């Protein structure tokens, strides 16, 4: 019984990882630092041996709520309210993005795509697993080992031709 729950958690984590990395790379987070705090984090990641574009990606996630925060908030609001919670989360993430000096395209569109994915998988995986899956997905990027994560993100952005 616990094996089925573990499989659900890991598959939800993979879905969330693919969603927020694709949306963030498409809206140009690895290309340049949006705010001046992200440039500090990017240069520090490059100094300890990582990739500069992956460092800009990680700094932009720290300094403003982008598609990673959009995916987490959409899963939280889907967990308590259903589909219309995802729409509320999209509007609140847009306001939060504007308070952090960011145009706000990545956050709200990431929340909408996460809501669509959760509605598509609603028969198989409950929305509770998406909350834990998003935390695991952000842990593999920000918390595990910064050099490997920045190299992986830089190579992925170069392969999608978005730098």
């Amino acid at each position, binding site marked *: 019984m616990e094996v089925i729950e573990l499989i659900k958690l890991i598959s939800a984590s993979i879905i969330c990882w693919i969603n927020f990395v694709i949306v963030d790379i498409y809206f*140009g987070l690895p290309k340049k630092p949006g705010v001046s705090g992200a440039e500090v984090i990017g240069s520090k990641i490059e100094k300890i041996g990582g990739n500069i574009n992956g460092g800009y990606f990680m700094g932009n996630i720290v300094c403003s709520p982008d598609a990673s925060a959009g995916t987490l908030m959409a899963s939280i609001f889907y967990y308590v309210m259903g589909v219309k919670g995802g729409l509320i989360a999209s509007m609140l993430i847009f306001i939060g993005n504007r*308070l952090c000096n960011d145009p706000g395209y990545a956050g709200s569109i990431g929340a909408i795509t996460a809501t669509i994915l959760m509605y598509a998988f609603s028969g198989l995986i409950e929305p509770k697993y998406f909350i834990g899956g998003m935390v695991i997905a952000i842990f593999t990027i920000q918390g595990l080992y910064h050099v490997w994560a920045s190299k992986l993100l830089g190579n992925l952005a170069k392969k999608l031709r978005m730098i």
Partner: protein
Amino acid sequence: MVIFMMDIYYYVISVMVSVVMGLIIKLPLKLDKESFEGNLFFPTIFIALGLTSIVEFLFGLNIIFSLFIGLISPIFSKYVNIIFPGVEYGSY
């Protein structure tokens, strides 16, 4: 099932009215990923959907609320750079 379909109609009505009002008050059509100005599609549709779902959660929907949300969301989108401005010294 019928009630669920009626709610979908209210969401569609508010989005359609907001896009038509945005065409009337001349919002720009070009979609720019860098600028802070609103255009016809970007904040308008998301604000309309979010406000409609908040009103459905609090009061319940009818046609008056849908028309009112369709009226105020393009006005918010036209002045979004004044309400939530982007500052020069913060960007890199």
